[in-house]
């Protein structure tokens, strides 16, 4: 199908972008790899698309003390290739190849994925596992929001009207595991796991199991895999989808947990 009609504006700076966002029915267009299909299928009908693709300041990957700041417009392909990402946040580098297909990874962006908050998406779960900080910019102020409070529900985040997600900050964590089960490469995950471990313990997030990514707090604190598998039931109660029952999803989450456990448990 064809998209309904809308107006289009491409600001050259953040300062130009904010007043555009205040217009009725305005929506941010980043890489467009989720928004444009939604337009084509007429699931979404904004009056104005504000294309932030020209804001080059949002394209930087910058190392900073203790981690990495990644601009919202950095693409999945850039994350996949970046040596800085592989060194500081290998979890993200491992997640990126699972996102759709090369032609989509060349356009889709980190910020777009985080701001959309698709429950089956890879980056929100990574952000939760790493407890990333989202940097939200408005005309007046900058707000920093932790991933734990940023993701509020199904396609719902803490972004307020007039705010743009400009970057996310990730702390450096070397030990990580990223796994997902799909029927075909590039499909949305049936169940996925994004986990990290450091001196303070493990943080394991699951995605495609609920309306937003879920931290498996009980399982992550377990002393053994056997105990973790039992405790996982307290952390997750996956909703069934068209093809998989709740019990299947819970079972598959356990399979991923068992595959990731050793990687996340090696002595430091």
């Amino acid at each position: 199908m064809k998209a309904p009609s809308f107006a289009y504006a491409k600001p050259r700076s953040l300062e130009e972008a904010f007043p555009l966002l205040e217009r009725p029915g305005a929506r941010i267009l980043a890489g467009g790899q989720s928004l444009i299909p939604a337009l084509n299928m007429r699931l979404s009908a904004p009056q104005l698309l504000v294309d932030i693709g020209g804001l080059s300041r949002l394209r930087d990957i910058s190392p900073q003390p203790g981690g990495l700041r990644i601009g919202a417009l950095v693409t999945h392909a850039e994350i996949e290739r970046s040596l800085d990402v592989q060194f500081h946040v290998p979890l993200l580098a491992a997640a990126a190849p699972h996102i759709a297909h090369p032609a989509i990874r060349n356009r889709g962006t980190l910020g777009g994925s985080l701001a959309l908050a698709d429950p089956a998406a890879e980056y929100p779960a990574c952000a939760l596992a790493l407890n990333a900080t989202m940097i939200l910019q408005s005309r007046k102020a900058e707000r920093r929001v932790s991933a734990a409070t940023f993701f509020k529900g199904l396609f719902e985040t803490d972004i307020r009207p007039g705010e743009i997600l400009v970057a996310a900050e990730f702390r450096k964590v070397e030990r990580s595991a990223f796994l997902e089960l799909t029927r075909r490469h590039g499909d949305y995950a049936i169940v996925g796991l994004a986990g990290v471990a450091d001196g303070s313990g493990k943080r394991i997030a699951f995605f495609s199991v609920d309306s937003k990514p879920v931290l498996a707090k009980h399982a992550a604190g377990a002393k053994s895999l056997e105990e973790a598998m039992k405790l996982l039931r307290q952390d997750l109660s996956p909703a069934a989808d068209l093809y998989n029952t709740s019990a299947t999803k819970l079972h598959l989450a356990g399979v991923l947990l068992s595959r990731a456990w050793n990687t996340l448990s090696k002595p430091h």
Partner: protein
Amino acid sequence: MEHALEATLTVNGTKVTRRIAPRMHLVDFLRDELGLTGSHIGCEHGVCGACTVRVNGEIVRGCLMLAVQADGCTVDTIEGLSDSQELSRLQKGFHEHNAFQCGFCTPAMLMAAQELVRQKKTFSREEIRVHISGNYCRCTGYQAIVDAIESVIGK
């Protein structure tokens, strides 16, 4: 609310300036405005890959990019890469391995496969399959396509 916007693109080496409605995606623009019908329209929501074109040297889904977003960009289509001979080895490989039946997916399949050929490395069959997983072929079962790509890469 909708106003056509002027955009200038370099398509297969030729600069074109047109007024474009924002809602028009890149493949419709290439096909309907420029007559470049080698890029096909299948699903129009990013699943089938039939619309694969190159923008600024990287493959993208032509149905998931607005034509106005390509303002100032270099766009290469199957027509351009055929004429420049860039795809000739791959095209020969597809021909020799009978890697198409109806041919609908073939232009985009070539565009996607060329990304591997350009890297001048070898790839396993599994890696080839993963790479073209975003391009659907409803005829061949992929076996012959993978054979064809395998015969050309790394050489």
